[in-house]
């Protein structure tokens, strides 16, 4: 049995080595992408080291480093990189949107909201900025604000289930169970297997 497995391991190892050689041959970018797909986010950041070392103002490398550090749970370093990217390009909506991610992960609701609002100033109906602002509003239990906000976004993105979920949570947070039931029912029309909506309807459907 061992004799059978060994050639397989050898072949797999050789295959991976060849992949590595190909990846390394393509340079740090390909290596970084490859490592990201393997979930090795810290290594994916380190792979970009030569790029940033050669050009500390390489905007895209810094943005990518910020994203990878966020995925790696290195939130404070991610925030620093996103801010560095903003210093390099203050018009970057991507950097402002990206900054919301580690801030939300650290439950820094007000800071995340400020960054999302800055995006909305330049791009009033940017979907992701609205979603992240709603996350921040939910975190602060601002149910009235969240409900009004979610209704406006639902009007612009009527088929979107995520926005409806935030509207339903805001209605439930205000104690308006009947409205929340109707909104969760609309969520189930879009995603019949939606667990949160199904659980809420099951628990409150008889009211």
């Amino acid at each position, binding site marked *: 049995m061992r004799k059978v497995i060994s050639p397989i391991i050898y072949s797999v190892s050789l295959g991976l080595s060849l992949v590595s050689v190909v990846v390394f041959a393509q340079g740090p970018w390909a290596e970084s992408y490859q490592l990201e797909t393997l979930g090795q986010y810290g290594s994916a950041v380190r792979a970009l080291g030569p790029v940033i070392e050669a050009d500390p103002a390489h905007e895209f490398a810094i943005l990518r480093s910020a994203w990878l550090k966020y995925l790696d*749970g*290195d*939130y*404070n*370093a991610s925030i620093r990189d996103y*801010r560095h990217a*903003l*210093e390099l390009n*203050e018009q970057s909506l991507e950097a402002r949107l990206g*900054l919301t991610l580690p801030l939300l992960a*650290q*439950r*820094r*609701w*007000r*800071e995340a909201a*400020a*960054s999302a609002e*800055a995006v909305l100033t330049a791009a009033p109906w940017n979907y992701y900025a609205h979603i992240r602002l709603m996350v921040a509003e939910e975190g602060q239990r*601002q*149910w*009235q*604000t969240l409900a009004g906000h979610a209704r406006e976004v639902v009007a612009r993105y009527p088929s979107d289930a995520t926005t409806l979920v935030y509207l339903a949570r805001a209605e*439930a947070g*205000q*104690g308006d*169970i009947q409205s929340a039931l109707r909104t969760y029912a609309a969520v189930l029309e879009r995603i019949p297997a939606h667990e949160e909506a199904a659980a809420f309807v099951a628990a409150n459907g008889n009211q």
Partner: protein
Amino acid sequence: MPGRRLIFAFAASILGSLGTGIYAQDVNDRWFLRGDFQGLLSEYSGTQERDALGNLGLFIRADYLDRGGITIGYNRTVLSFQDGDQPDIKQDNLFLSGRWRATPDWAPGSFTFRLDGHVISNNDSTNGTDDVTAIAPQLSFLNYQESFYLDIGYSVSSYGDSLLVPQALEIDQLTPTLGFGFNEQRDWLQFRAYLIDASSSQRAQDQEDSAALELKWTHWPTARGRLGIDNFRVSTVLGERIFAVDQDAGGIYNLSDLQTGAAAIGAEWALNERNRVLVLLGLERYENRAINEDYQNTFLYFNFTHEWN
């Protein structure tokens, strides 16, 4: 409002590290202001000495985003006595507090360091409860799920020279605290131990060491119901404590005798996102060993909170 901006800029310079470059410019006006106006009416029973106690207070709190902030507070307290010839004790209490929140990546939550200062002045003819100053640092941790809270608080209070007992009085207090959220964060249970050491037992009801456990339970109902109540509160104090520093209330029990227990119930109404009203009804038990009296204090507490943004 240039004055307000000046205060904010000053506070921002104290808090420091507000970010640099573009981001700092974007959020430079991200201060969050909150005011709390509070009142307390209470009546004593079972005592030949005390009659009533009233209090009015105002707290202004300014927070820079989620980083930290400062609170400034003022309380005016009047204690009246059964003996009409005995003048009321009128007291001013100034409160200043600063806090800083840190979110290190290695921790599954955030840490907050807080430092409180109290300065109390009154017209107590014995001077025993006058000229009080207190410093109270606190380090707390709250996990990101907001289901676990831990803090360790300490305070050192010094009292003025008493005309009755020629001994200095300094109070050391340790308050380890645990809090738990459960039922999808619709319930919060907090336990705080008060471990108090008085440098002079003669000035502290013959009690050099006192210990008490405070329990607070807050429940947020799923639906607010007809009364529109946002949350219900129940609290109790078991054990004994004297000259305690209450870090939740931002006050000091400097006018109190030995507290031997307390219980309170209350409710908070969220009128809207910016305005809240809290009402508490409570009963406290005290002991005055100098005149061998056990007595009670029934109080009604009111707090109105307004958030400007």
